[in-house]
């Protein structure tokens, strides 16, 4: 790695359906900086923006980054990335870097939920529900809208009760109707909110059980930031969950660590210099031009 001595930094960029995240790590895979921001409609501009922001936070320039891996829903829209790797592989790697013994990871994002089986830090099996909003962050957003609440209030209010109402429908739209009819029955708000969390948890746990849940179990994704949701997941699963300090960025973190691995492999094969040259002449220029 001698020739990389002046640029021992690697970046991972995760363009999710709702949020975009970027992480920079050093040669020891330690995190130097991260950013999180909404994705919006223009993936390419967003990719440039989060990259600029994370570079500013790490006090680095794009030329200082040796290798970039993009992941997530919008991974194809990161023109300056060296390689695209799916969010499933990246999440597994990111989670395993924080919890080396992890065997199961459950990630609930804005529009999908995934369950990963991990062994010795590697993804071995997975399931996703990527066709329907049930059991995802979107479900929570719809519920919040229906009840006229902010997302961050919901968790707190739901914790005030131990008697959640039953929300039977797993479909987001039908569940919305069910919430309205529970309201009109006069059910207390905390009970309804707790019921919503249990409904999402039931849906995701059903997915997880298909893969056999082994401990330790790590819970990540934007939805894991919600205390009410963590409690509901623990209740339905019947076990404690580990939640990273910043559960949104495990995909980007894994991507950054995989970027480091990829660069090391190139060095070992003696291909790094030519790769770097090509990179500096094409992709980075594209980044600086389009980004501004």
């Amino acid at each position: 790695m001698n020739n990389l001595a002046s640029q021992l930094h690697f970046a991972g960029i995760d363009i999710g359906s709702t949020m975009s995240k970027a992480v920079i790590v050093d040669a020891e895979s330690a995190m130097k900086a991260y950013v999180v921001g909404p994705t919006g409609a223009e993936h390419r501009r967003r990719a440039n923006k989060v990259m600029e922001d994370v570079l500013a936070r790490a006090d680095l320039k794009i030329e200082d980054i040796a290798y970039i891996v993009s992941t997530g829903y919008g991974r194809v829209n990161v023109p300056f990335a060296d390689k695209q790797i799916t969010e499933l592989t990246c999440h597994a790697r990111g989670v395993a870097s924080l919890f080396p013994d992890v065997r199961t990871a459950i990630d609930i994002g804005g529009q999908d939920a995934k369950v990963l089986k991990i062994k010795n830090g590697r993804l071995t099996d997975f399931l996703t529900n990527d066709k329907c909003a049930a059991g995802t962050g979107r479900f929570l957003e719809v519920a919040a809208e229906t009840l006229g609440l902010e997302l961050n209030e919901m968790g707190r209010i739901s914790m005030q009760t131990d008697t959640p109402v039953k929300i039977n429908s797993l479909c987001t739209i039908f569940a919305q109707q069910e919430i309205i009819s529970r309201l009109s029955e006069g059910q207390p708000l905390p009970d309804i909110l707790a019921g919503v969390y249990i409904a999402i948890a039931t849906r995701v746990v059903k997915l997880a059980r298909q893969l056999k849940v082994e401990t330790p179990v790590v819970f990540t994704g934007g939805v894991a930031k919600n205390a009410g949701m963590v409690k509901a997941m623990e209740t339905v699963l019947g076990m404690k969950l580990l939640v990273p300090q910043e559960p949104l960025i495990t995909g980007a973190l894994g991507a950054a660590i995989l970027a480091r691995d990829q660069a090391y492999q190139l060095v070992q094969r003696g291909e790094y210099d030519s790769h770097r040259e090509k990179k500096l002449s094409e992709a980075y220029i594209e980044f600086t031009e389009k980004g501004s």
Partner: protein
Amino acid sequence: MVTAVTKGLSLAKEVYQDRGKRVRELRKAGKKIIGYVCLYPPVEIITAMGLIPFRVFGDMNETITAADQVSTTVVCPFLRSIIDLGIKGKFNFLDGIVGAHTCDIGAGLIIQWRDYVKDAAFTHLIDVPHTDHAASVDYFSGQLNSFKRHLEEFTGQKLTDDKLAKAVEQHNRQRQLVRQLYDLRKPDPPLLSSSENLEVLVALFSLPVDEGNELLENVIEEVKNCVNKQVSKKARLLVWGPVFDNTSLYELIESAGASVVVDDTCVGTRAFWADVRPPYDLQSLAQRYLVDIKCPRTYRQSEPAETARSYDKDLESRFNYIRKAVTDWKVNGAILQSVKYCDTHGYEVPNLRHYLDTLGIPSLYIEHDYSERSLAPIKTRVEAFVETLG
């Protein structure tokens, strides 16, 4: 042949892209074309009667609209697509259709065809038992006899032993050539892509048997002699499941960095793996179709007393042919695909995944609604699966 200049893989592609073109020409020249659905109507009988068998598929890019009159959306979308195209007149080059009770909807389709497809001169449904016991084979043989008599009535011709034996030889020859075609994907890298392979097979289902055999001979010759464009990939996959007659899935898998080297699907090996064994009569056809075709629509319980006692023995008797494919094609992963609402295949998936686990072969299960757009959300899962193998 279709044109004087096109042959081999380019001819296969041409036929794949316009399946009805050649049979329309033959029909103009006075030939009669008999459509068939699924693998169980014996093509040998159709060929032997001087008719041309044409396997009916749906169209993954045609939105289903007309079929809503005759069935709801909880029905197999592949079979719905077929009746949809039938009602819309897209199979107007067929002189008749024959189906088999391979599954309930497959049987119902033939009744719908009789009632809703204009100008259906000949429709026939063959009843197929769901187990492979000796008594079932005898019953199925009787069903084939009824089919034969119905075709004799339709054509005014007799089916002689000689005609049947000749047709069996031609179709057996086709099966042998297809197995040679599959051998070309045993090396690393394989000598042709799975999409090219599928185009050839779909062409075979659209041409008279002699033209199909000539196509196969040319393709094999061409592939053996040309410079191999394929590259070696870490993932060598087997694809399993019901009918998939469109290259889109294979393109998706191969663009994710894997090679599909072999399959267990009914547009692939299932249709061509078993020959009809002598004496080439209806009983040997019954044996070939009911017992030797390995499709989950028939429950194969070779030793009832033993399999009833042991789950592992049951799995082995149902899936041991997959063990052989895994070894012979050096497979290191499997993609199990199914069309939505296919209970025949859905029932098999957990058991098959368990069997593959015991062979040390990781597998991914995906489901689609027989439309190209339903494949897009599958892409990330296929890519992640390939990454776990790398």
